[in-house]
């Protein structure tokens, strides 16, 4: 059904254009590859709503609810994709319908808000959200409250003075605490002193800020000094250049803390080409490529999050609320989905459940 | 005695850079040389002269668009100097340009009130009033126009009426009309003339610029003739005759300054068979023999440039054939023409002919790039040698080879343009107004060059509005009118200016 609508939509729009165009130019937008993309969209549309679309109205029948997940872009973000897949599996196990909305670029806060509004209109009963910016998401949460749609935040938490009633709970790794542990572990490894650089994430991303600040907090009390801190913008390209230039400024650094495994490729390249040796590299997320690098010994440790745990718990709690077994007050405001300190020893089994 | 409302004496204007308006340094070429002009109240004063005679420049001075370098202008007896056209209009002088001063994307009323729209509350335009007032103004001229329609949808004549009614809305006493009938149909011309008679009755004087003698006889009370920027004379309508006007326009130039050394061969190089330059144009045919100079004369808008560009391949034709060296030349394009040896020297060299921001040598070799450097790489040595040859041959006066063309004088620029054509060693030369806006001695150099080229076996098709030049240079002259060829003059006696002018006008 959805496939038909998608085709109908683009066809009618094109027909509308031709009507106004006054000429019978055939549709020649884009390259031949674009036609290939048209078939492509059908598969992705199918893959998303695997089940045939049950009745579109609110889940009238008991147990079959519509649960939406709003997340930032999934490209080059296996971590987010893993949460989304886990949630989809859990939702469909419970016989409910799963709706996914992703923004097309990592920073498009306005788009995430309007996507949530659209999902509310399409009648979702519960929402799981990984906010791009915890301040900008508040109005959307207020709207959910008006429609009494319970909301659970995953991975990135709420801003400090967010009104507690807006969300049921926040399930995620305590980026801050996780980074503090990483800092303490690195200080131990370095014997309490040395120079360290931090490769930050994209500006304004709550998780990124918390990880950088957490790491710095973890180093207080030791005389391990943070000599350089530049953003890698979650992309290998920028991380590579930032790392290269930081190595120039202080060639004798002893440790590097990357705020996410997605930037490890770039950082390792920078270190290889600079010919710097025995630099302790710590990272965060515990993605497949992160754990693999730890296993190969090129990265010393990574703080593995459990996206699957986040996904499972979120769906579990929401179903409890929807089925009336529990109310929003029964949950604490923060549930730590735990962080594992992955080193070469436990890298093997960490790799199994890594996203 | 009729009251003289406008008088101009000793008006002189040196050649100036059109875009910046500042005079060009280092030349003393005058566009207007000590011109006298006067206008009585309620009179239609026709101004006659060939292209480049300075008519439009004189009118731009009266219209306040450009200042005059020397001379005095009196309006109602008082000396005045206009800084811009708005001031002139405030004093009651309105200018109806050939390309009208109107915007095709907005409707008639908004054009009518452009720049002084009546505004009501909150600064909103009083649109109802504008539509009514403008309709009234047009009705006052005896025409009915729906002032809501977009200007672009009106015919040229209707647009002209809007411009004239706009001029009248400033209760102007003098209206200057520059070539108003250039693109009007016969019926529309009659409409315009009846309007002019009506304006005369209201005491409004009109300066009517044209080079169509038949119109001037109908409408003009007095006729002034200008040639090469000089004032020749004024005639009353009573003793006006075409011959006298033509003599004054064409001027007595003896033929001996043009020595014709080339002898036209009889092998036909270029032959045009029933070529149609436009959908509705009549098919035309012409031939150019080896070593022959063929002239092409006609009024502005007769389609001479369109014909030249169609042969060259820069413009699509609407049927007919072009035979070159006894083969049919299909799918013509500038590139292909140059390869075959047909070159075209364009009328306005700054737009079509030269790259003013590039150096002399770069311009000279521009058309001949593929010939000079078949390997694809520009060899500095080969270019230097060829450019040296061309500069010598055309004696282009420039400090160094890479001097910017924009810094050269008009004459030198035309020689660079010509050099560019000759760099390709062409067989057929199509020249469009080769000597327009150039000082006299460069003109003679160009005549000599054309003659020598024909002598060496090139065939030349030259378009010119100066009768004397055309007669002096060409062996045969085709006459064009209304987009097709209406006649051909080949032997000596017939080639007189009076005869040609008469043929052009179709009198």
């Amino acid at each position: 059904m959805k496939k038909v609508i998608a085709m109908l939509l683009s066809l009618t729009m094109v027909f509308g254009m031709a009507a106004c165009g006054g000429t019978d130019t055939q549709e020649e937008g884009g390259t031949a590859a674009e036609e290939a993309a048209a078939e492509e969209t059908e598969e992705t549309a199918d893959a998303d709503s695997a089940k045939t679309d049950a009745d579109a109205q609110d889940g009238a029948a008991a147990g079959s609810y519509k649960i939406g997940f709003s997340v930032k872009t999934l490209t080059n973000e296996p971590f987010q994709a893993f949460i989304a897949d886990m949630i989809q599996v859990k939702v469909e196990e419970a016989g409910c319908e799963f709706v996914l909305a992703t923004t097309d670029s990592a920073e498009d806060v306005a788009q995430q808000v309007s996507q949530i509004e659209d999902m509310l209109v399409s009648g979702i009963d519960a929402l799981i959200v990984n906010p791009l910016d915890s301040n900008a998401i508040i109005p959307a949460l207020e709207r959910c409250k008006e429609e009494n749609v319970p909301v659970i935040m995953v991975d990135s938490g709420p801003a400090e003075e967010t009104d507690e009633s807006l969300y049921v709970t926040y399930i995620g790794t305590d980026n801050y605490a996780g980074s503090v542990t990483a800092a303490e572990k690195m200080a131990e490894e370095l014997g309490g002193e040395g120079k360290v650089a931090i490769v930050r994430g994209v500006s304004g991303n709550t998780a990124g800020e918390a990880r950088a600040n957490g790491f710095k907090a973890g180093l207080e009390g030791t005389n391990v000094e943070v000599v350089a801190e530049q953003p890698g913008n979650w992309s290998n390209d920028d991380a590579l250049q930032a790392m290269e230039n930081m190595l120039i400024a202080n060639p004798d650094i002893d440790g590097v803390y990357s705020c996410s495994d997605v930037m490890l490729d770039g950082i390792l390249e920078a270190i290889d080409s600079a010919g710097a040796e025995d630099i302790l590299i710590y990272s965060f997320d515990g993605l497949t490529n992160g754990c693999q690098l730890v296993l190969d010994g090129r990265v010393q440790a990574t703080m593995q999050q459990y996206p699957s745990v986040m996904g499972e718990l979120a769906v579990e709690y929401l179903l409890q609320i929807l089925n009336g077994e529990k109310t929003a007050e029964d949950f604490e405001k923060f549930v730590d989905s735990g962080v594992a300190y992955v080193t070469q020893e436990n890298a093997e089994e960490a790799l199994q459940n890594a996203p | 005695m009729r009251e003289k409302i406008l008088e101009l004496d000793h008006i002189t204007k040196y050649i100036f850079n059109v875009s910046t308006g500042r005079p060009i340094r280092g030349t003393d070429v005058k566009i207007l040389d000590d011109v006298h002009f006067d206008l009585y109240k309620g009179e239609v004063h026709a101004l006659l002269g060939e292209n480049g005679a300075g008519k439009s420049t004189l009118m731009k001075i009266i219209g306040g668009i450009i200042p005059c370098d020397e001379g005095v202008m009196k309006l109602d007896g008082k000396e005045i100097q206009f800084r811009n056209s708005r001031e002139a209009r405030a004093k009651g002088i309105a200018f109806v340009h050939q390309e009208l001063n109107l915007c095709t994307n907005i409707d008639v009323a908004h054009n009518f009130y452009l720049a002084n729209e009546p505004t009501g509350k909150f600064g909103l335009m009083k649109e109802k009033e504008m539509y009514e007032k403008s309709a009234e103004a047009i009705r006052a001229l005896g025409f009915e126009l729906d002032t809501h329609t977009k200007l672009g949808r009106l015919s040229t004549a209707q647009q002209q009426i809007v411009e004239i009614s706009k001029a009248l809305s400033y209760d102007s006493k003098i209206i200057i009309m520059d070539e108003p009938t250039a693109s009007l149909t016969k019926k529309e011309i009659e409409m315009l003339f009846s309007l002019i008679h009506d304006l005369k009755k209201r005491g409004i004087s009109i300066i009517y610029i044209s080079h169509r003698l038949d119109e001037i006889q109908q409408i003009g009370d007095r006729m002034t003739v200008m040639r090469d920027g000089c004032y020749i004379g004024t005639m009353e309508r009573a003793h006006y005759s075409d011959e006298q006007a033509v003599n004054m326009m064409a001027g007595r130039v003896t033929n001996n300054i043009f020595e014709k050394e080339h002898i036209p061969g009889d092998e036909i190089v270029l032959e045009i068979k029933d070529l149609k330059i436009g959908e509705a144009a009549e098919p035309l045919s012409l031939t150019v023999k080896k070593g022959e100079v063929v002239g092409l004369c006609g009024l502005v808008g007769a389609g001479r440039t369109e014909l030249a560009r169609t042969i060259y391949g820069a413009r699509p034709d609407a049927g007919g054939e072009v035979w070159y060296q006894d083969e049919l030349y299909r799918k013509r394009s500038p590139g292909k023409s140059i390869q075959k040896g047909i070159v075209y020297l364009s009328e306005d060299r700054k737009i079509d002919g030269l790259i003013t921001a590039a150096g002399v040598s770069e311009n000279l070799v521009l058309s001949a790039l593929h010939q000079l450097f078949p390997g694809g790489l520009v060899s500095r040595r080969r270019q230097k040698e060829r450019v040296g040859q061309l500069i010598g041959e055309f004696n282009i006066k420039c400090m160094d080879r890479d001097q910017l063309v924009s810094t050269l004088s008009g004459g030198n620029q035309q020689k660079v343009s010509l050099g560019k054509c000759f760099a390709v060693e062409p067989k057929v030369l199509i020249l469009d107004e080769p000597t327009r806006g150039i000082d006299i001695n460069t003109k003679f150099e160009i005549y000599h060059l054309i003659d020598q080229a024909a002598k060496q076996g090139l065939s030349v098709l030259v378009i010119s509005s100066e009768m004397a030049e055309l007669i002096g240079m060409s062996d045969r002259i085709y006459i064009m009118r209304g987009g097709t060829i209406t006649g051909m003059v080949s032997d000596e006696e017939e080639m007189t200016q009076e005869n040609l002018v008469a043929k052009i006008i179709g009198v």
Partner: protein
Amino acid sequence: MQKSVLKTKEFFRAVSGRPLVRTLVIIAAVCAAAALIPNFLKFSNLMNVLRQASVIAIPAIGVTMAMITKGIDLSTSGVIVFAPMCVVVLYRGGVPFFLCALCGILIGILAGLLNGILIARVGVLPFIATYVSGTIMLGLTMVIGNGGSVTGFPKGFTQIGNGSVLGIPWSNLIMLVCVAAGALFLAKTKHGNRIYALGNNEAVIRMEGLSPEKLLIAIYGIGGFFSAIAGLLLSSQLSTVHPTQGNSYQLDCVAACILGGTSMLGGSGTVVNSALGAVGIAAMRNALNLLGLHPYVQNLVLGSLIIFIVAVNVLLKRRERRQQESFHIRRAENG
């Protein structure tokens, strides 16, 4: 058969002739298709679509004026972010909110005037001048907010963005007011008339003794004004200022104007049409969201749409020009 073919041709020509009709057809096509999607036509969703369209439609007023004079304004995304950032920084510095809002709008106008001066006086190409000024403002916002988002707007302010009266969100009302003001200014005031004239024939403006430079500077100043208002509106919707909140609006505003029939070659285009174009884009994104299709599909569709429409406009223009040319020759014949 002959008669009916002529009629449909007439219909197409009539439709393609007047821009307003053309835009209505686009919007009708988009809504007709979207209506098939469940709950698209729900009142609340339509209000959402309009609210999302408001932040595209308001700056599109300035962009339309720029495009009418053969220019373009890409600095909308910069002003949408920089103006509210100044407002929130001043407000946190204790300045009364009304003054801060005024100052934010002034900054928007100033940025617009800077664009105008760069384009009219210095002669920089419009699209590169406005893009660069947009990037500079984005950079300054990042420096002020140290890369992050800044909150601290008064409660009442965020009410404007999200609150609604009688079910109609405030943003829609603000959009209607701005679009009405813009439309009136462009269609009904003398300055609007001169903007259209400037887009068609600059020589006439000079001939009438007006200065095209001053007019251009004013146009881009107005563009800055409307972008600042849109910025404040967006920040009130998000209750925060995030340095990249404006990124997608840069292209959406231009796309809205093109969808609304504003031609790239200057001289045509109206504010109401561009606003309808903005609604068309918001409706399309909303419809595709409801379908759960990836946002990349939206980019694919919007990208092809823009190229297609401009291609059609250029073809129409070329056909017109060719008719005029032969018209001229036919005329010369019997001259």
